[in-house]
């Protein structure tokens, strides 16, 4: 038993170091190359163009990648746990569909032209909250939760939202379609520091609260009834975790768009390396997701510099390829 804890500790330190390395690498790479050794000096003088690039552009971006990557991956781990289904990811719930529809409406109605770009995340979060309320009410109406029903409702809400979005795209200008598509592909380019702060605080508190539910989540691996016989209030646990997961998804999607794949594959990779104990899996997935998204963001910014690729493209390609290689080489735990 002790040996397991040491293994967890070691892997956590490794992940933390990877996150820090990626962050350091990310801060020095970009259109304007800044040498690593110069960075402490630039911070000491705290003036000049290099200082503003570091603090106004690169640092916020890295922090946002850290928060969004961590939150999406954490959400994936939580949802795969409560649904006991390895194919579930943050976007299965219908929350992201609602967010995307909200943003599309803001774009099509031209609200953001009148009130500013800040309306995009506001629209996204409103859409996410509405679909969250819808899924929650439909799923938990009759006392006990039925996990499969909940999943189906989420998928259906997703379908309705994406169909409505296609309707909007069919009736609007090509300029608006372009904006919608680019928003959906996701970007970590967020000038508003308040939004970045909200995202960081939300994802860290989501992590903290969900770790509190690590042992109930462990019991839920056996199914709701067996967990119940072990004294776990399955119903309450699922409700709270569902709320945390959807709020995190809603915030991430509103701020950074639909960045796919992080929430699906990172929990898988961590699980196949370290087993399915949620006491480790939650924290491990968070750090793994942060690392992955920071690295993908470096690629998105540098591959076709000075232009930028949508980060969703990178996460999909890199993540998919890495995952396929892993599946063919590493024996997935349990087989």
């Amino acid at each position, binding site marked *: 038993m002790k040996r397991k804890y040491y293994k967890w500790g070691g892997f956590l330190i490794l992940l933390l170091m990877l996150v820090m390395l990626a962050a350091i690498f990310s801060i020095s790479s970009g259109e304007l190359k800044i040498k690593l050794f110069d960075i402490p000096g630039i911070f000491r003088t705290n003036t000049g163009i290099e200082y503003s690039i570091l603090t106004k552009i690169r640092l916020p971006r890295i922090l946002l990648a850290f928060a969004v990557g961590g939150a999406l991956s954490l959400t994936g781990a939580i949802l795969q746990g409560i649904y006991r289904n390895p194919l579930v990811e943050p976007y299965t719930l219908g929350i992201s569909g609602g967010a995307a529809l909200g943003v599309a409406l803001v774009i099509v109605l031209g609200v953001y032209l009148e009130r500013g770009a800040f309306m995009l995340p506001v629209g996204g979060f409103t859409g996410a909250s509405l679909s969250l309320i819808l899924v929650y009410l439909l799923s938990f109406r009759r006392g006990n939760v039925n996990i499969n029903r909940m999943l189906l409702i989420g998928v259906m809400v997703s379908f309705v939202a994406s169909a409505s979005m296609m309707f909007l795209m069919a009736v609007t200008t090509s300029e608006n379609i372009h904006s919608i598509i680019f928003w959906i592909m996701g970007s970590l380019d967020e000038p508003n520091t308040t939004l970045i702060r909200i995202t960081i605080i939300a994802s860290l508190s989501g992590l903290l609260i969900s770790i509190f539910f690590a042992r109930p989540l462990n*019991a839920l691996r056996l199914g709701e009834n067996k967990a119940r016989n072990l004294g776990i*209030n399955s119903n309450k646990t699922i409700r709270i975790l569902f709320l945390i997961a959807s709020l995190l998804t809603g915030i991430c999607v509103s701020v950074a768009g639909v960045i796919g794949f992080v929430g699906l594959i990172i929990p898988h990779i961590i699980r196949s390396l370290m087993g399915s104990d949620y006491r480790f899996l939650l924290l491990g997935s968070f750090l793994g997701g942060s690392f992955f998204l920071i690295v993908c963001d470096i690629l998105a910014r540098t591959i076709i510099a000075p232009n930028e690729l949508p980060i969703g493209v990178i996460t999909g390609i890199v993540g998919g390829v890495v995952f396929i290689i892993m599946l063919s080489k590493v024996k997935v735990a349990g087989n």
Partner: protein
Amino acid sequence: MKDFLLLNDFSCGYKNSFKLSDISFSVPKGDFAGIVGPNGSGKTTLLKGITGELKLFRGAVSLNTLNLSAMSLVEKARNIAVVSQFSEVADIPVEDYVLMGRLPYRTMWQFFETQNDLNVAERYMKLTNTFHLRHKLMTQLSGGELQLVSIARALTQEPKLLLLDEPTSHLDITHQVQILNLIQQLNIELNLTVLMVIHDLNLAGEYCDHLIMMKAGKVYLKGDPHEVLDYDHIEKVYNTVVITQKNPLSGKPVIFLVSGKVLSKRKNV
């Protein structure tokens, strides 16, 4: 304690479909009781009613004079452990699975198992002869091993009442006897009260102190195996002709089934 587990005018089940009614019986402390009855007679529903998985329509269940529906889930899990059949198994190491039996004892802020948790889990893994399996995954175990590990987890809950749902179905006779001998040993050595749903009437007769025979959502008969496993009762409840005799070694009732061919020959004679 005479009425350790007491069901009084108990009724539970599913809305607008199957339900149990007028169930009243008691199981004394340290008893090894069995529930028998044909498929669909409500044996598993009865267990679900006792654990609280199904809400009671009427009546009450009490354990040691405490009303179970007033008990918190955690308190219930410290008093009652359930060994149910595995429909699907997760990728969990055996040791972690057994340690889940300590979940009802964790405190609010407890993240890791205590030394006592580890000791208790080890003790019951050794008792059930599953300690050597501790690093294997649940998915790598055979049916018999799964059942033993499940009993180890149940014991790790340190319950006062052990509920088992057909612990020997799908097992060969070696494992059937191994599992039931273990339960009997626990019943005697730990003075653990056992209530077990079991299909096999011969095993029920051989191992249980008392039997509760169910028919169509009601208790048809309760008593010691000799009274309950009488050919007359079995024919009425199961609609099947049987011969009952005594096991020459244990003196417990044994049931013989008779094929249709032999029966029709007898009738023609």
